[in-house]
């Protein structure tokens, strides 16, 4: 099954911690890319750089900022292909890069 792991929120900490987290994230990414289960994913720029487009009115409107004003926004995602939820959970539990993850199965017909 294919899942999207959404990385939510960021660790509080200085530059030193950020550097060490990024190193761990790199190692995690490499490990699962090599084993073939990680099929895609990206890190996102912070919500401050987001632009929202609202459709459904008489004309589309473009506004600055994320669509939902939440403290914890999605900072990145990975697409993984694993046998089942437990396998995705195992990957998620060792993720070093954000304090929360949301796992969503990808819609497949």
């Amino acid at each position, binding site marked *: *099954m294919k*899942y999207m792991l959404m990385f939510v929120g960021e660790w509080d900490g200085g530059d030193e911690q950020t550097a060490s987290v990024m190193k761990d994230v790199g190692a995690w990414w490499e490990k699962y890319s090599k084993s073939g289960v990680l099929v895609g994913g990206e890190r996102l720029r912070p919500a401050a750089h987001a632009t929202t487009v609202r459709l459904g009115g008489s004309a589309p409107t473009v506004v600055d900022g994320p669509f939902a004003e939440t403290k914890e926004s999605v900072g990145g995602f990975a697409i993984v292909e694993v*046998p*089942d*939820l*437990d*396998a*995705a*959970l*195992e990957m998620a539990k060792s993720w070093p890069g954000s304090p929360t993850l949301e*796992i969503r*199965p990808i819609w497949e017909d």
Partner: protein
Amino acid sequence: MSPAVESLVGQVFREEAGRVTASLTRRYGDFELAEDCTQEAFVEALRSWPDQGIPSRPGAWLQLVAKRRALDRLRRDQRFAVKVSGLPFPAAEGGDDRLQLMFACCHPALSRAAQVALTLRVVAGLSTAQIASAFLVPEATVAQRITRAKSKIVRAGIPFRMPAPADLEERLAEVLAVLYLMFNEGYLASRWEVAHDRSLAEDAAWLAGLTAQVLPSEAEVLGLLALFKLQLARVEGRFASDGSLVLLADQDRSLWDREAIRDATELLDQAAALQRPGPYQLQAAIASCHALAESWSSTDWTMLVRLYDRLLEVQPSPVVRLNRAVALWHVAGADLALHETDALLPELQRYHLLHSTRAELLTELGRDEEAQSAWSLALSLTLNPAERRHIRARAGSVGS
């Protein structure tokens, strides 16, 4: 249909439902299909067994009927080939199929309410109506909960297999918590009088037995099973002929099943020998301390206080502290016990047993008026008819 046949069918179904669902799930890789067809086979059994008699191998009969139903459905299904080839569930490796099913039903990705409903329906074979009446919730709520949970199992890819060794402890804790909840719900209900009604407590004990068979070296599984057995062994003494609750202090101990108590105590010894203590083993030790006492007055209260202290270390809950206070009453007197109980008022003000304990303590201390208002509070906080009868009787005797 005669109640006897119906009850026998119910018993067979409890034995077989999980096994049939598990086997179909493994064979066709479709949990929803497996569950539906198992239910259909049961309905078919209820229709045909009263006339044709119960088959010599009822499990095999149910399996066959369910399998035929599943094949019929799959043939009708345009995506037959796709379904059979794309088994979402890996094949079982060792262990009892039903335990794997239980691990799927008690997956932490499901809410506790969904875990309980699903386990009862899928593994223990209860109908939606039976689950609804046991938990006093509308049948539609239970039906919706089960439908959503089944759909989540399939769509989110919750696996049908034993958890990885690293996760076993955590996942087993989920299963045991569901069984514990199920047991208590059944044990506290005053439905024992209804002889043909399958009790949740017995179902929970049966499932715990199944778990212990597959995982005989998991100390907490043995502890939980011992606890259930110790409670069930004493069930005869719990209700008076008018359906009111009989407190442990007043129970006729000759009604207890001594042999079952001995078995359970041996089981607890086995668990202790594994040297991995935990809350279920401690609760079983507390239950066995009561079960082995000749009388209320000869109960080893000092030992009980010690066991509660150890339980508090691993499970620091206000309800455990309340129970400890009751044991302390017999070791150190009502004054100290009341002091401990009063300290729990902020946390347990909605808990009827806190107020009935206070009422008993206040009565012993001669503070009848306060005792009376504590009884009133206790009464206002429970709907259980046996408990209500007990509270009314006790409140009536204050000051007399």
